[in-house]
């Protein structure tokens, strides 16, 4: 979230020291992973938020199908159910709540809010997840490589990080949005296999993903690099070197498994950050546009209906908050579970 240039910076994940022989470390018999799992399960809050997140993910996956089979109708008009004299706010209490429209209708076009919110997860989460994956991928690869090979490579990556971090993210986002999306839709979509990028939704979505990952990877790279440095000298790496393992093998077979914990935590915390980032971007008019729903563009419309249609104003905000909080708590839970030292 930070969107922000460094408006996102504020939410870097605290560094994770690997758990040394703390009290729990003494416990033999179960593998660290099993222990972490056990700890995570033991934490009610984490579990609840985990279920919530699962539900969100489910909604994201299920909605497109539900739309296909006609259960959901995110952009179907019900203008007959609106009071067109009052600027098109729904007839009936609570923004036109009814059996057919459990969360009411959107003002203006009278689309079904439930459908829209649910379907918006598909896009918002889609963006957040793809963004996170790419971010983490870049971060991990560069982090491992620079941490492992050190020297010139390390320095270069370092400079590269500096360069990336000194770009004002939100400004670049604004300034590049229109041209880049045009570029994607006109030229990139000409390339073989990329024809689908002509679609404005995909193009806009892709742009958001690009921005998020282009500016998001440095912290990941740093965390990973730190981890790599700390394990680089460990015996098993030496051993692997001795038996003449290839670089690639070293990096990804030997090193990667030993830095997964921080990566996992970082990932789980990036997702919610990116979800609210998408919302913030929408406010600036960047990202997927209606009628295709995203949490961001729904919220952007709903905020102006504070008084006229309170239901429509509150629901999207609450849904967004709930989602973000849930994912964050899962992330925290994961960190606490994996690193008892910072345990509650």
């Amino acid at each position, binding site marked *: 979230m930070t969107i922000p240039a460094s408006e996102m910076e504020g939410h870097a994940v605290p560094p994770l020291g690997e758990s040394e*022989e703390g*009290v*729990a470390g*003494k*416990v*033999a*018999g179960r593998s660290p992973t099993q*222990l972490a799992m*056990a*700890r995570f399960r*033991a*934490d009610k809050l984490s579990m609840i938020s985990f279920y919530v997140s699962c539900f969100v993910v489910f909604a994201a996956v299920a909605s497109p199908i539900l739309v296909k089979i006609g259960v959901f109708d995110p952009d179907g008009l019900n203008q007959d159910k609106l009071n067109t004299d009052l600027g098109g706010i729904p007839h009936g209490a609570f923004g036109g709540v009814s059996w057919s429209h459990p969360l009411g209708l959107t003002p203006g076009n009278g689309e079904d809010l439930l459908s829209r919110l649910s379907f918006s997860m598909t896009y918002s989460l889609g963006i957040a997840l793809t963004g996170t994956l790419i971010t983490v991928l870049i971060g991990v690869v560069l982090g491992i490589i620079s941490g492992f090979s050190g020297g010139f490579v390390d320095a270069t990556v370092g400079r590269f990080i500096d360069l990336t971090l000194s770009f004002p993210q939100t400004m670049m986002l604004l300034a590049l949005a229109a041209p880049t999306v045009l570029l994607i839709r006109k030229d990139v979509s000409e390339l073989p296999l990329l024809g689908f990028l002509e679609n404005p939704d995909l193009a806009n979505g892709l742009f958001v993903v690009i921005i998020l990952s282009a500016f998001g990877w440095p912290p990941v790279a740093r965390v990973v690099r730190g981890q790599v440095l700390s394990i680089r000298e460990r015996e098993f790496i030496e051993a692997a070197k001795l038996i003449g393992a290839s670089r690639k093998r070293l990096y990804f077979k030997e090193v990667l498994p030993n830095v997964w914990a921080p990566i996992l935590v970082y990932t789980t915390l990036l997702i919610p950050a990116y979800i609210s980032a998408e919302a913030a971007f929408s406010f600036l008019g960047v990202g997927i546009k209606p009628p295709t729903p995203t949490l961001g563009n729904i919220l952007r419309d709903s905020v102006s209906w504070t008084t006229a249609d309170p239901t429509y104003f509150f629901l999207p905000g609450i849904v967004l908050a709930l989602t973000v909080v849930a994912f964050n708590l899962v992330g925290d839970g994961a960190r606490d579970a994996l690193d*008892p030292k910072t*345990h509650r």
Partner: protein
Amino acid sequence: MTDMHSNDGPYLSVEDLVVHFPTADGIVKATDGLSFTLGRGKTIGVVGESGSGKSVSSSAILGLHRGSSAQVSGRIVLGGTDLLMLSDEEMRLRRGKEVSMIFQDPLSAMHPYYTVGNQIAEAYLVHNDVSKKAARARTLEMLERVGIPQPDRRIDDYPHQFSGGMRQRAMIAMGLINDPGLIIADEPTTALDVTVQAQILDLLQDLQREFNSAIIIITHDLGVVAEMADDVLVMYAGRAVEYGPTKDVLTHPQMPYTWGLLSSVPDVQGDTNAALIPIPGNPPSLLNPPTGCAFHPRCVHRSKVPADLCTTTLPELLPGSQGPGHTKRCHLADPDELYRTEILPEIMPDLIVED
């Protein structure tokens, strides 16, 4: 006043000390019913693998678990007062003054942001109402005493600018600056190389003589014990498994775990065909320790005990053949015989001869 202590009863007596940590994974029984006594000017060595509860017990004596989730019970009587009965504040006032601790790995044990002198003086200032200047003078004196060259120049250095040995000396200076009655040295030499080890140990002994203080030295190195300690306490899975005068325990160990420890010490002046017999298996889980004798899963002599007592019943800590002063926690009928006939030839062939 010191005399008074040495006359009636021991200076420190720990009775049935229990330290339990409730964790997300269950209760960790770090120390379970530990008892021992220690007189002024005497040294006790507490031996055991890491995680056997050595450090935990000693920090319990310092009251470092106060304010944490740890559950501490039993009695820790120091100079006539039960430390566990004291209020946090009273305990704090004793900490560093009557009891002080010398930690292992002084690099992490010293604050990286403050100068060595500053940190030592701090320990003096908190317990003595004196000027900063006086404290600094005292600090210099202590640094001098622990053998830091040109203390007046090093006093304003930061810990990371000291060598390992120097840091350990500084730690000792910090621990002794209020000449406490009881010093707990937690693995004071593990981080150091052999020659420095010797120096530090000598230093400790000199200081002990000077201040007539009692020392608890925690280590997994029987060599250190042999050199320093009057008594030795072997701990396993949070319990004392053997306890007695050092010489006695080292020459006539009564407990297979102690044998294991002995056998895993490379004998410095010993001959080369001395076999190193490591103890098989891992330290037990303190969450759910093995039934009966906690050592049984790793004990090769289990078979020699009838009706697998080892697995079912926890042996008492009782005097063995070596008289009341030397207690052990083991079901074996005649450990001496077993040790002489089976173990000794293995680990110290040369000792057989003189027998």
